């Protein structure tokens, strides 16, 4: 269920330029409750988006076409960026280099503009002309359906799992909820809370604002925010003694080495990867290697066929036996 309690008026509006703030504040509740993105582009119409729809906004609310919509001025964008960065672009350089800023509540603001390079890598984004405010909504309960498939009841441990889905398929949401469930523990399944470590390279899982998780990731969870995955996993192993490590979008060589290290250290790994089928994954050398070595005991496939986070299939890693399939209507 979407958590409609996210109050855009309280959490997002303080970061908008006064004119935009006035427009968004006067939108009807139903519209705000489903809004997922607010798009600000220089001298183009103000737009809000949700799953499967969008609406242009004029000064008095939603309008039919781009002609009547409110066009963003440079001043609107400048003020918004100033507020989002807390008047301190100098303090957010690392985040801007990644292309986004995070605001309290874990909401992410994607940025586009002119990129300044230094030695071939992005130094900073200047003249920001486009901003996408993505509203982070925690989907509490997203992992409850999947979780029972991930527990080894015999040994009382959690399987190494890989979550696979195309973009916007709900991977991160599922990872976040699994972190919460594993960390808090579920009494019904006889599962006590375990120590969870999240290596959150893009600050998406826990939505950290200045290092503090803004979304519920559980009571026994430690979050390494904005930390490269491979280094983060090693750091976790060395000093935070996690029982489960959660990270997203693996695919680089060093990620694979770190995962090997964790698996051999007896720590459960739950990770995600882009892809829509097993074939997709097998085409990527690093993921293929990890699968061939049978590191992952459970593969969970998601899609956005019936909205983000549609559970398609769960298969057992070693022999590829399906445990759940949406096509046959459930558990096998």
């Amino acid at each position, binding site marked *: 269920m979407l958590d409609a309690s996210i109050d855009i008026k309280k959490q997002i509006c303080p970061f908008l330029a006064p004119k935009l703030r006035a427009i968004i504040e006067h939108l009807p509740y139903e519209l705000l409750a489903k809004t997922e993105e607010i798009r600000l582009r220089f001298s183009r119409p103000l737009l809000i988006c949700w799953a499967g729809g969008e609406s242009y906004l004029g000064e008095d609310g939603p309008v039919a076409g781009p002609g009547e919509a409110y066009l963003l001025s440079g001043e609107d964008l400048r003020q918004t960026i100033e507020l989002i*960065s807390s008047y301190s672009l*100098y*303090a957010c350089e690392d985040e801007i280099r990644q292309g986004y800023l995070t605001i309290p509540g874990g909401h992410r603001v994607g940025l586009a503009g002119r990129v300044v390079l230094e030695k071939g890598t992005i*130094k900073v984004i200047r003249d920001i002309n486009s901003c996408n405010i993505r509203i982070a909504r925690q989907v509490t309960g997203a992992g409850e359906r999947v979780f029972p498939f991930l527990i080894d009841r015999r040994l009382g441990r959690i399987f190494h799992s890989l979550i696979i889905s195309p973009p916007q398929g709900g991977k991160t949401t599922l990872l976040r909820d699994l972190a919460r469930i594993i960390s808090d523990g579920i009494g019904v399944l006889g599962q006590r809370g375990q120590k969870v470590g999240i290596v959150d390279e893009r600050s998406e899982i826990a939505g950290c604002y200045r290092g503090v998780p803004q979304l519920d990731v559980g009571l026994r969870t430690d979050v390494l925010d904005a930390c490269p995955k491979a280094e983060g996993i090693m750091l976790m192993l060395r000093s935070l003694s996690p029982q489960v490590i959660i990270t997203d979008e693996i695919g680089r060589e060093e990620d694979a080495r770190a995962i090997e290290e964790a698996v051999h250290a007896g720590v459960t790994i739950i990770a995600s990867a882009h892809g829509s089928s097993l074939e997709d994954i097998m085409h990527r050398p690093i993921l293929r290697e990890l699968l061939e070595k049978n590191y992952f005991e459970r593969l969970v496939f998601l899609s956005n066929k019936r909205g983000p986070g549609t559970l398609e299939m769960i298969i057992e890693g070693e022999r590829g036996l399906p445990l759940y399939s949406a096509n046959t209507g459930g558990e096998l």
Partner: protein
Amino acid sequence: MKLVGAALIIFTAYLMGCQVCALYQRRVRYLEEIIMGLELFRAEVNYGLTPLPQAFQNIGKKFKNPVGSLFVDFSLSLLQGKGLSALECWRAVLEKRSSELALKDEQMEILERLGSTWGQGDKDGQRKQISLIQELLKHALEGARNERQKNDKLWKYLGLLGGVTVVLFLI
């Protein structure tokens, strides 16, 4: 009795002269403090961790009023969340504190110019802008020091002489 009255008049006139001198001294002190505050802010920019409002809250606490309260007021108005730009907040705060600061118009102008630099640009840009304003302020400070030196004795003597003149008239 006459003698006591005359002494009182001369003393008061001298004190008035001193009051004017104190103004020049205060100007120098305020400018020194503002330059120092900016230096602290530049260090914050270097580490790149503390956002502007928090940085000025900390810096403001290190100085006496009115410079301390100028910085603290600035940070508070940024944190109010009314959606004002840093420039607008800075201007409002400067205006509120201008009578206490008692700076000359050209010195105030330099401070006003600071407003358009807050939070603009990346680390390097911000550092450069602060350095530039610091240079201008140092120049102004130099002028203020010279003025203080020039006027210090002048006003004290003027006070004294003024007092004596009044006394001579009265006698």
